[in-house]
């Protein structure tokens, strides 16, 4: 049923509005949030593939009744095939992305409800609104609509940062907004240039105009638009130069919030990156820029992560660094490279959320995130320590967990594309990632407990452990049966890679 497609956006919005209205009614919030969060991953599974036209306005060519007595200016030209209304497109790749986003959202909401002293309707609002916005960003085929929901996601991110009572969160939120105030209008300016030149904001139609010579693809204005959209992409996904602010944002949110916000970044990265590839893949240059930025993100993110002493900041930088792997997959431009990159995106959204929630238990128990003051947590909770260790294995790409499969595919793709250097760098940085993780793990779990460390909360909520177990199951299933995911991603990768 195609009417489920808009529901994927509408349900979290409704849930968000309800939770805000019910703020202070703790029990009701818990029940409603859990029930509605359970619907989130279920919707994309139930929905069928297809296009959803807002208001049912199909292109004129498919709807002759609307187009009666129109002059040949419209019926005789490409305008006849253009999409007049906002179009949502739900294909197999979107299915897996929205499912993973819903899953991460469900588990983040679930953890947040049980890890906080009182469930807050406002926090729930921010989380659900962010999920709705990113779902719309993934589904939409309309570049201006994408901008609108992108801004909602940015505002929801700010809300998630503000809701935590961590020291310095206001300052970080303001920095994020000021930098966003420069970068987001640049994205809009890029959209405006595209609209002006092609007369359209629908991506399919823009590509049609470029392919069929309605617009000169080499026109400098289009190059400018591409540059501006790339800049917006850097901001949206936290690639350099935005890696410092993005990792600061992760570190100032609660663990559940950080798990969700990094998923937002990953999916914004994918959505905008796919759009850049779809529209501008005729410029080989754009792929080189994607590759270069991704390499820079990997190197800067991971080397900065080693130097951090704050636990959350360390994972924040690792999360930014891991984005580079996705970018390398997209930048290679081959079918296998893009498949591997998209697969890595799916894996990374899961694994980083797993790590954030896993190390979040330490924060929950002690209230401290400075690795120099922590230690000896293994004795208290060996099970949690094991789960966190497995999360680290997954991030570093240890078989049989999922990132092993995607990183292997990425390395194979880079060798096949004639760039084995990228494979070497990826292996090198994987090792360093693992070392960084082990350093944090050692400092938190293995080292003897410092005398002045006091444990505030003995018991970790069951919900957190269940969430981590679910993440582990996903990691193992995707690791053992990668073709389950890649078969969903293949069509999109073929359509993107076939162009080159």
């Amino acid at each position, binding site marked *: 049923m195609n009417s489920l497609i808009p529901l994927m956006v509408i349900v979290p919005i409704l849930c968000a509005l309800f939770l805000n209205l019910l703020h202070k009614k703790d029990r009701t919030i818990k029940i409603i949030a859990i029930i509605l969060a359970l619907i989130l991953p279920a919707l994309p599974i139930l929905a069928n593939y297809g296009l959803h036209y807002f208001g049912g306005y199909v292109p004129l060519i498919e709807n002759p009744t609307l187009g009666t007595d129109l*002059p040949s200016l419209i019926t005789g030209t490409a305008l006849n095939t253009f999409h007049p209304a906002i179009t949502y497109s739900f294909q197999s790749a979107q299915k897996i992305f929205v499912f993973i986003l819903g899953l991460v959202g469900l588990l983040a909401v679930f953890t947040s409800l049980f890890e906080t002293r009182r469930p807050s309707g406002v926090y729930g609002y921010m989380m659900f609104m962010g999920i709705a916005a990113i779902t719309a960003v993934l589904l939409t085929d309309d570049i*201006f609509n994408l901008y*609108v929901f992108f*801004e909602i996601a*940015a*505002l929801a991110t*700010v809300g998630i940062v*503000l809701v935590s009572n961590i020291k310095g969160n*206001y*300052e970080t*939120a*303001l*920095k994020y*907004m*000021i930098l*966003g*105030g*420069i970068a987001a*209008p640049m994205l*809009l*300016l890029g959209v*405006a240039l595209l*609209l*002006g030149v092609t007369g359209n*904001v629908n991506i399919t139609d823009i590509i049609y105009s470029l392919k069929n010579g309605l617009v000169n693809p080499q026109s400098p204005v289009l190059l400018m638009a591409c540059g501006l959209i790339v800049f917006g992409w850097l901001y949206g996904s936290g690639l350099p130069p935005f890696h410092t602010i993005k990792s600061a944002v992760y570190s100032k949110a609660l663990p559940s919030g950080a798990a969700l916000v990094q998923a937002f970044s990953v999916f914004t990265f994918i959505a905008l990156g796919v759009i850049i590839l779809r529209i501008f893949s005729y410029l080989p240059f754009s792929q080189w820029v994607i590759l270069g930025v991704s390499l820079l993100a990997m190197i800067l993110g991971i080397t900065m992560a080693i130097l951090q002493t704050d636990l959350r900041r360390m994972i924040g930088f690792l999360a930014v660094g891991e984005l580079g792997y996705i970018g390398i997959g997209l930048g290679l431009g081959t079918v296998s490279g893009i498949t591997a990159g998209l697969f890595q995106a799916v894996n990374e959204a899961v694994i980083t959320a797993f790590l954030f929630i896993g190390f979040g238990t330490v924060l929950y128990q002690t209230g401290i995130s400075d690795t120099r003051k922590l230690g000896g947590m293994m004795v208290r909770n060996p099970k949690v320590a094991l789960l966190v260790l497995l999360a680290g294995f997954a991030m570093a790409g240890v078989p049989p967990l999922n990132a092993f499969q995607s990183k292997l595919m990425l390395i194979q793709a880079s060798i096949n594309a004639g760039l084995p250097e990228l494979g070497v760098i990826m292996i090198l940085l994987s090792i360093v990632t693992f070392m960084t993780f082990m350093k944090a793990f050692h400092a938190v779990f293995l080292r003897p407990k410092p005398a002045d460390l006091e444990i505030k909360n003995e018991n970790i909520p069951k919900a957190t452990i269940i969430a981590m177990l679910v993440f582990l199951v996903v990691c193992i299933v995707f690791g053992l049966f990668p073709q389950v995911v890649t078969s969903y991603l293949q069509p999109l990768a073929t359509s993107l890679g076939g162009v080159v």
Partner: protein
Amino acid sequence: MIIDTQLASLFTAVALIIIGIFAAAFLDNLIKKVIGLAFIGDGVNLFIVSMGYKAGGIVYIYLPGMAADWFSQNASYPLPFAMVLTSIVIGASTMAVMLGIIIVLYKKHGSLKASEILGD
């Protein structure tokens, strides 16, 4: 007229964007920074509005008694205007949140200097 209206309007918009980025990057006062961001947003909005300009066009409202054909050929282009409506609201919303945060930070630090409040 030496320079045509649309080009002048587009250039004004771009100038606003540049001035806004300058203010956001170089000025130290937080309120001035936010004003600079407002400039950037307004510049982009003006840019989009200018794209809907049609020389000698009429307002895109279909009044009774107009011939439909004549209206369609002479009305200016509505899509940019509709987009700008949305974009203005987005700008105003982010501005509200930023100013709210600045109020709280001012109470906490007693200053509006970005170098003091938003330093390392």
